[in-house]
């Protein structure tokens, strides 16, 4: 039987009904039409499904929809403010740090979570923080540069 869940997504109150075994990723994609988060592995190893729950970076493929009752979820769709891109989004574009783009939403969410926690990460910290977000296309160099640039801009 369906479970009723009340939550906040990207600042808006949202309610949904899901099955007990349904992942948050499936809820977002199939019930709420938020298809930014992708399924790359469904086992917590690729980061394509990254979201934040109460500010904490999480694999939505490993979280049940029913678990987010009363929590606050952040997805890639909520990163830009209207037409204004978040610095990490802008810097990914400026550095051409994407190719096929499937990993990009996860990278945006993960990098934003890093910068909120640590405004001035070292190159090594970036590398290890982002190690859970696989990208098969870019080779990561430009992704790291983008995060460094965004960090610098956000520090002002």
């Amino acid at each position: 039987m369906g479970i009723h869940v009340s939550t906040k997504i990207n600042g808006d109150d949202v309610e949904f009904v899901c099955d007990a075994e349904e992942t948050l990723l499936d809820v977002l994609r199939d019930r709420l039409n938020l298809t930014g988060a992708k399924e790359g592995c469904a086992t917590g190893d690729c980061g394509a499904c990254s979201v934040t729950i109460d500010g904490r970076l999480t694999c939505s493929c490993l979280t049940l929809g029913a678990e987010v009752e009363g929590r606050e979820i952040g997805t890639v769709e909520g990163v830009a403010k209207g037409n204004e891109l978040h610095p990490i989004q802008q810097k990914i574009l400026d550095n051409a740090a994407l190719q096929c783009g499937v990993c990009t939403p996860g990278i945006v969410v993960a990098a934003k979570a890093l910068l909120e926690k640590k405004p001035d990460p070292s190159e090594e910290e970036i590398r290890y923080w982002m190690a859970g977000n696989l990208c098969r296309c870019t080779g990561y160099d430009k992704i790291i540069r983008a995060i460094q640039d965004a960090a610098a801009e956000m520090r002002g």
Partner: protein
Amino acid sequence: MSKLIPDITKDKIAGGVYQNKLHDSGHKHVNGQAVYVDDIPEPHGMLHIYMGMSTVAHAKIKSMDLSEMRASEGVACVLTVEDIPGINDYSPVKGDDPIFAEGKVEFIGQPIFAVAADTIDLARAAAKKAVIEYEELPAILTIADAMEKGSYVSDPHVMARGDADGRIATAKHVIKNSVELGGQEQFYLEGMIAMSIPGEDDEVKVYSSTQHPSEVQHNVAKALAVPDHAVTIETRRLGGGFGGKESQPALMASVSALVAKATGRAAKLRLDRDDDMVMTGKRHDFHFEYEVGFNDDGLIEGVSMLHACRAGYSSDLTDAIADRAMFHCDNVYWLPNIKVESYRCKTNTVSNTAFRGFGGPQGVFLIERIIDEIAAKLDKDPLEVRQKNFYGVDDNNVTPYHMTVEDNVIHEIFEELEESSDYQKRRAEIREFNKHSKVLKKGIAMTPVKFGISFTTTFLNQAGALVHIYTDGSVKLNHGGIEMGQGLFTKVAQVVAEEFQIDIERVKITATDTSKVPNTSATAASSGSDMNGMAAQAAARTIKQRLTDFAATQFQASVEDVEWLPNRVRVGSEEIAFTDLVKQAYLNRISLSSTGYYATPKIHYDRENCKGRPFFYFSYGAAVTEVLVDTLTGENKITRVDILHDVGKSLNPTIDLGQVEGAYVQGAGWLTTEELWWDQTGRLRTHAPSTYKIPACSDRAEDMRISLWEKGKNAEETIYRSKAVGEPPLVLGISAFHAISDAIASVTDYEVYPALDAPATAERVLMAVDRTKKAAKS
């Protein structure tokens, strides 16, 4: 507003060729708004499909009881081979890839049936209720096994020139050895997927994540027993392809279309990661044997090679791939006396398929290994031996397949990179470091690439495009190429913008669609922008010519007086905005739409005699990789990479740099951490990112210095003299492998050649360390 009213005063358009135009969908990607097949809103009542797979490597199917599965909750449809109205095959060439197993299974993961239900969970649960009884047969699982039993998917092929054996016999030095080279999973982050929507009569529309819509269309039609015209394939973008989505997607598309037509409901088949890795093909692994004769300088006098690759249970594209490995047996080296024997082994494992480089990297791997070993034997810097054996520019420049290398630039690239990477100084420092560092050892290597550009199956080298101009001056562009992240759509739009001299924002790129441009070739062989760029240019030029003629008539001038300027056209002293010209032309009944077509010139090949010009031109590059190896654990890390790569006159340097970087990392991953491992029953045990390790962000070299070769210019008349970029730089990953080998050699003070097999996983590195130490002692 700038998008609506083009600026007709400026002297350069935005987004023409040679500009750093960003990926066309970049904005959508960073916002999660770019739509992949799985993101398309699902039609009402859509079915989800799960595929039942073989659990044994080789067996007769004794019996199949699917009755309980059919009765399972939510199941709408079950398909087996009996339910295919047309032909049970989705192969690209030879007709040997059944959609569903018929009477026998030939590898673990082979599809036997499909079950479609209201949700994927219900379909999966139902599939568990299938009861299949097998009568197991002996299975051939390895290359060695297949070679011993003479089990091949096609006849062995030999390419020879000069007298290899004779020259080896008389050479001063001879090395005879063998080496193993592993395969590689494409690991496109978006897995295989197809969604089919049944249409009127015999029609069906399939959204497919494929690099080859025309082939998918053909296969779907064949399975449904309908004409090709009844099937439409649409593909907007892929979440990565890397060759893995060339022949394989026909399976997903065919099954989803069969379900859609059988039920009258939309149907989606999306493989999850594990099933995808088990069910679909990978890069071919190779066993190589070699014997080489050379002189005191390391100059190769004769070389004999044996290539044995694992095709898997069927041919798929193996012949073309194994041939390409042979075409790259020389890399950049002049080998006057050479013999290559190639065996395409049939095994009871998944059928291997295309993967970026398509056999080329494997061919290069062997000759680079040979050179490296020659250098070790002569106690020389491998760089010197490489240079010694380079093709000449004007002489010593004929490949083993009798094509003259007319565009050799490797000498210049190598010299420049040796200098800019500080190779000599660093090599000396590394040797010094290794003397004093007991456990951690450094290594460095520089390797070149020469990569042949064109499909070696000559007829595939054709492409089509379709360009419309609407009366407001906006342009719609369609071509047969697939956007899979490589920036193809952006590059082709740049070409069209350049032709019409309009800002790129005026050009709308649309999804690849078999009903717009028919009979296309796969977006593969690095040929995407070369061919589709030319086809789009041809289409644009046809319309441009009409507009030029029209403008001349309109202003009573001659055609020569018509000049195309940014967003406007000048005729004599008059200027007219592009938009106005288009409107005028329309009112005067001038057609504003055209197709364009391109067939790559000059190429031909006689396979039987191994003679011809299979490639239009070559791409070149070189890389220097430095690594750090822990000789107690085998762990290793790439610490610095320097790359100089020739992309001709780059259509878009930003995109090309991204391709070079990504390809290098993928190539290095192939030869270091990416290990495919099958157990004794033929079951793939590395079928998820938890066990199959592609490079992660943490593996990124701290210091990456990647440059495009500034002097680059294609000697042939390609689109704006650019060169293909997709595959060649992957081959540069070989430098990482040799750098590791160099580090290992240091444990015996470079006395013993490590003879490393690939991939150089920590385990293999450790074993090589032990082996070399033991060899040095004895």
